[in-house]
């Protein structure tokens, strides 16, 4: 591959265009950033080109955002801790669009008892009042990985490489306090094609000992009907 050297002042304007388009190689981009500190012409040119590049997305033919995508995003937003979520009443499980529950995958063998394995915790931001604790969750009966991030009494479950729920089913998040039976939450979710999902656990997790995920019929259940596939132990 032929590599042109990072431009010197003589033709730095060409670098400004490529930089605005995000088309410089990382090393060249870093050199150009340093060059900008001493070249007012390039700074002006880069600013002007960036305004053009900011307009480029509109060159794409315009489509309306799919309603199912809007619903999914807003469902995820409302399921996560936040001002609005803090005010929200406990939601009844809702039936989800078919596209979220359409791919068969989970085998029937989820009946095995789940070993509650805590692989460890990690303080991500020591010293602050909003420290984040990452708890590795156990995943049983299916492939994939999961961890729980707990910040200030709120928790977010981050899963990866999880298979989609079976057709007509959805994943449901449960919270368990001490020896009480698991309580359902309004957090129902599926996963992206890569098996990823970030799911806010509704409400505070103070006093919660275990967070678990089961596969349930679309719309959710009031009591678990399957063995958990994800278990995270908080205490």
């Amino acid at each position, binding site marked *: 591959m032929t590599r042109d050297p990072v431009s010197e002042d003589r033709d730095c304007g060409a670098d400004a265009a*490529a930089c605005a388009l995000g*088309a410089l190689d990382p090393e060249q981009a870093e050199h150009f950033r340093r060059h900008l500190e001493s070249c007012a012409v390039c700074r002006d040119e880069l600013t002007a080109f960036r305004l053009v*590049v900011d307009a480029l*997305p*509109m*060159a794409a033919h315009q489509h309306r955002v799919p309603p199912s995508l809007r619903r999914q995003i807003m469902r995820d*937003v409302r399921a996560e801790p936040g001002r609005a979520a803090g005010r929200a009443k406990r939601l009844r499980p809702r039936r989800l669009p078919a596209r979220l529950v359409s791919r068969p995958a989970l085998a029937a063998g989820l009946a095995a008892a789940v070993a509650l394995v805590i692989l460890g915790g990690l303080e991500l931001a020591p010293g602050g009042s909003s420290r984040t604790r990452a708890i590795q969750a156990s995943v049983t009966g299916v492939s994939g990985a999961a961890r729980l991030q707990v910040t200030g009494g709120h928790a977010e479950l981050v899963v990866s490489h999880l298979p989609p729920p079976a057709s007509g089913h959805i994943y449901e998040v449960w919270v368990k306090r001490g020896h009480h039976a698991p309580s359902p939450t309004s957090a129902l979710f599926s996963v992206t094609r*890569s098996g990823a999902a970030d799911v806010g656990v509704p409400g505070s997790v103070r006093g919660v000992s275990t967070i678990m995920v089961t596969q349930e019929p679309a719309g959710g259940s009031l009591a678990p009907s399957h063995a958990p596939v994800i278990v995270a132990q908080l205490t």
Partner: protein
Amino acid sequence: MQLVADRDAHAFEVIFDRHGSAAFSLAYRMCGRRPMAEDVVQDAFLSLWRTGARYSRTRGSVRAWILGVVHNRAIDAFRRGAVKESRDVSDDGIAERMEASERTEAEVATRAEAQEVRTALGELPAEQRGVIELAYFGGFTHTQIAEMLELPPGTVKGRMRLGLAKMRLALGDPAEVVP
């Protein structure tokens, strides 16, 4: 935007309704496949929500900022190889465009603005338009483009510069085009 930073779901919904379609259109153009475009848009907006949407006016308009996040997410997806086969920089033939009878007033305005930008890009000489599209919508670096087109890298950068300069003239002040 401050309300979004404060994690007000209603404010976030308003922002999504204003910019979601433009975000989806960009992702669709870059990915060429609806499911992947949906994943990109979902990742982008949820990251904005989770990070407290650290928007600063110095970054330009809210829309430019959001579309920049979508653009970066799409390129991340390219680099993970998720859409390797579909990096088609043309969106010809993509279905489900906004049909005239279905458009709202805001969508009509957006569409007119989009037409203006598309015309400015379309009027560039093909070799300049091509390198700009490959870089922006395809996520390729200028050295990758030079290899593809069997051109010296300096020529590619020169074409990018000429093309953007002409678009700048055609659009006037792009800051007015992208409020």
